[in-house]
């Protein structure tokens, strides 16, 4: 664990400021990329590719997310620990969704049984 308590150890440091100053080209460039990818997402949605659709859509969204993260949120010029915090949170999200999905097979076949039972409509 680096002792970043007081040292200005951030690479690519701006002039005398506390943190990196995003350049206009990088801002506009990122914005352009995001708009372009949004068009791509909608275009892909219009031409369904079957099962891998969900992964393509998630892939594009992740590219957009990393663009926002790196340039708009200065993760490119930020201390390693902040990047670790951001990426670490996704690890726990995947643990949560992954293990919950692992149990999913148990549920489906018997839900139709519940349809047969009359619904308990509380007196309206």
């Amino acid at each position, binding site marked *: 664990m680096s002792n970043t308590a007081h040292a200005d150890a951030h690479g690519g440091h701006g002039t005398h400021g506390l943190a990196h100053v995003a350049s206009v080209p990088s801002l506009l460039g990122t914005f352009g990329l995001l708009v372009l990818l949004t068009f791509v997402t909608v275009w892909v949605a219009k031409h369904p590719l079957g099962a891998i659709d969900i992964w393509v859509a998630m892939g594009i969204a992740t590219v957009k997310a990393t663009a926002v993260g790196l340039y708009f949120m200065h993760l490119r010029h930020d201390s390693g620990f902040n990047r670790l915090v951001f990426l670490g949170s996704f690890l726990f999200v995947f643990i949560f969704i992954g293990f919950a999905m692992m149990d999913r097979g148990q549920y489906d076949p018997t839900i139709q049984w519940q349809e047969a039972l009359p619904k308990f*409509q509380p*007196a309206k």
Partner: protein
Amino acid sequence: MLNSLLALAQQPRIAPTEGDFWFPPQASSFASKIDSDYYFIYWVSAFFVLVIAGVLVLFTLKYHSKKNPKAERTSTHNTPLELAWSILPGIVLLYMFVLGFEGYTDLRTPPSNAVNVDVTAQKWAWTFTYPNGVVHDELHVEKDQPIQLTLSSVDVLHSFWVAAFRTKMDAVPGRYTKLWFTPTMTGEFWAQCTEYCGTNHSNMRAKVVVHEPGGLAKWLAVEGDPHGGGRTPAQAGEKIYKIQGCAACHTLDGSKLTGPSFKGLFGRQEQMLDGSTITADENYIRESILNPQAKIVSGYGPVSAMPTFQGRVKDNDIAALIAFLRTVK
């Protein structure tokens, strides 16, 4: 209060069951395996607990500040020792996992020749539907005949647990869950609900009776069919009153439980929640059984806590219940 405590002290220490100190009797095929798993972990745990307690007492006496005023500066880390007391317990733990894994796969794979009994759990009563369609509030099985229970619940979560058989499974609304066992001891055991389900969660018990081989058919013939065995409709109605779990909410002695009491109900003028009064005749009873929300007696919740019995009681059962209610004065 004091004398009741003293009376308790004279009672036999622990009610005598054939089980040993820790367990009820081993009344199912996998009970002995589970108990042996328990004892393996028990002795490993006892070893660690006693060693740690011993070391604590030994160090406290030996290095007490009076006897040892100046602490010695021993080494402050020893990686091989740390690895030793991580990996060795780790191996013992993995062996425990393997024991658990074997037991669990056995617990959760019913044999092909298992007889299936459907179990419906509702707020505070179990009802068992036997293969020949008989519905009863007791589970009757035969010795050495594997039984598979298909559990489902009509309202909230419940859990079916027979301590003597060492097996347990939740009854979840909206899905079937399965549970199996092979009884190896004749006699009567309690099946208890172990998933909190409300007011009478602690009384939601079902009797499990293990017959000698062949005894089940005899019982089904006599007891199974409430209308059979020479019983009058009123007597059949009384049996259905117990089997279908009506007793859990409606008493016969006039006292109010979750539902109104049946004492003197038949033919009486009943005051409804919406102010109207009706006579408690056959149609009212039939409608209240099949659609409890239709007419709710005043003094009871806006939404009736009674589940519908549509599809769970046949017409002759309703006729028998009505005959029985006539006799309840």
